């Protein structure tokens, strides 16, 4: 096991509503999310002495948030990054606290991802800024290659050809995550869908249909990390950080298309580190979260992280395997596909709530951990929620993972 396994914990989680549009600043949303996370943990602003965030030049900074909340920080850092950053900042917090740079660190993301700067870089309906076709973008943007759907679509198309998988496997993921969203009062899309609904939805970027693509929302979300000893006195039983990997990369990381196999993604290089650190096997994992910017991104990460063999993910997800009460429930809040888009934070937040046995569902007693497990009545708590593997990525060539353990049975 890793030297720091179980020494550090997630003690507070919080977010704003998923909004379209928010009509708010990213500062205002970040303050609300962090306040909610502090209330969840039973902490006050003076208890937080470290703050980190990630963004893609679309958000407020730690200094602004600390000023607004009246915090004096011993450590602050805002990084440039998208998916895979949440888990990396949690890893970062563990190292910082261990080394004595801070005691209790909040990590946040705040974005007007629908009403402001959308993924792909353009203002809605507007022109692409000329500067964007320079430097690193001179070999893609001029041909109309600008969006995540186009990039992942390229890997997905080749994956289908190399493995014989069909888009029905994509549908399994859309249906599973949507089913979980029907049990989540916070989710944007709450009507159940079928495999056929997926197959009938219109093309966005072939081989992706509308129901393969995540939603875009305005939201902020925050996570608080501290040491095990400090966690004992807080509001909830701690959720222990067992292990992970952080922004692990493939070879030739910036230009995925030049790699020998473009769908051999970064998780392949990381998962032995995470599972080794945690001292567990895949059989010990009760549920997963799996970054779903697209259905395909969930599919490919399951095999990259060793839950099944290469080229086998299409078979693996068949028959509702990723749905609650089946073998490996995935993205229990509905994920990016159906709950809303937080650049990965909400998956970690949902995992924490599940591991505490306090999924915020329709059960009247969820705050006390009392669940009915009756899905028809809106219960979304996994019965056996002890260990969770969270898999996240930014692109094919960069990924993170966070294995967490709860105390509830």
């Amino acid at each position, binding site marked *: 096991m890793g030297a720091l396994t179980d020494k550090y914990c997630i003690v507070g989680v919080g977010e704003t509503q998923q909004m379209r549009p928010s009509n708010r600043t990213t500062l205002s949303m970040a303050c609300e999310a962090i306040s909610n996370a502090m209330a969840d943990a039973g902490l006050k602003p003076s208890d937080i002495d470290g703050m980190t965030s990630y963004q893609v030049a679309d958000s407020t900074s730690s200094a602004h948030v600390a000023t607004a909340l009246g915090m004096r920080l011993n450590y602050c850092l805002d990084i440039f990054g998208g998916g895979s950053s949440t888990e990396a900042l949690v890893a970062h917090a563990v190292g910082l606290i261990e080394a004595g740079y801070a005691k209790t660190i909040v990590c946040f993301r705040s974005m007007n991802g629908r009403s402001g700067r959308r993924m792909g870089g*353009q203002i809605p309906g*507007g022109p*692409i800024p000329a500067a964007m076709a320079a430097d690193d973008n001179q070999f893609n*943007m001029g041909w109309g290659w600008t*969006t995540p759907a186009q990039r992942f679509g390229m890997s997905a198309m*080749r994956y289908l050809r190399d493995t014989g998988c069909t888009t029905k496997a994509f549908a399994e993921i859309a249906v599973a995550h949507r089913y979980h969203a029907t049990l989540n009062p916070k989710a944007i899309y709450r009507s159940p869908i079928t495999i056929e609904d997926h197959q009938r939805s219109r093309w966005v970027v072939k081989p992706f249909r509308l129901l393969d693509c995540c939603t875009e929302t305005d939201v902020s979300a925050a996570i608080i990390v501290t040491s095990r000893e400090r966690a004992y006195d807080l509001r909830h039983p701690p959720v222990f950080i067992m292990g992970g990997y952080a922004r692990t990369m493939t070879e030739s990381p910036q230009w995925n298309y030049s790699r020998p196999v473009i769908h051999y993604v970064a998780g392949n290089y990381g998962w032995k580190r995470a599972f080794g650190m945690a001292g567990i096997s895949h059989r010990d994992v009760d549920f997963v979260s799996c970054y779903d910017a697209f259905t395909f991104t969930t599919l490919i990460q399951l095999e990259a992280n060793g839950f099944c063999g290469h080229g086998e993910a299409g078979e693996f997800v068949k028959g509702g395997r990723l749905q609650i009460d089946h073998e490996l429930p995935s993205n229990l809040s509905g994920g990016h596909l159906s709950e809303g888009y937080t650049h990965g934070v909400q998956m970690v937040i949902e995992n924490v709530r599940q591991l505490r046995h306090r999924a915020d569902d329709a059960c009247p007693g969820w705050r006390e951990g009392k669940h009915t497990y009756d899905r028809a009545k809106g219960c979304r708590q996994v019965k056996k929620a002890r260990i969770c593997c969270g898999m996240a990525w930014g692109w094919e060539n960069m990924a993170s993972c966070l294995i967490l353990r709860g105390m509830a049975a």
Partner: protein
Amino acid sequence: MSEYTKPLPKPSPTSRPFWDAAKRHQLMLQRCGACGQFIYYPRDRCPNCFADELKWQRASGLGKVYSYTVVHRASSRHFMEPYILAIVELDEGPKMTTNIVADPRAVHVDMPVAVYFDDVTPDRTLVKFKAA
């Protein structure tokens, strides 16, 4: 002729020979003098052996489709839908991001293609491909 409104690639000192060659309707790749590997996109050192003996060499312009997407919903109003984005694996080895100029229903993985030079402005030519 109407004004070209799509984003135009801006050459860097390292990539300028590639863009200048495209304007002459030649596909030029870098090749490492030490290990012999062909390289795309243009750079300063060989990513295979780290030698700094890269030389420009004319490529055959032939290859096949490694993967592709058909864009039915573009992110910018400057691109007409649907269009084909592709990764073409050149006979020399490297892969290029490009467009296939074809009916979207006709394109497939492993389709043989040949280079096609699209003079989008008097100063800039985009390297695209058509069915071979």
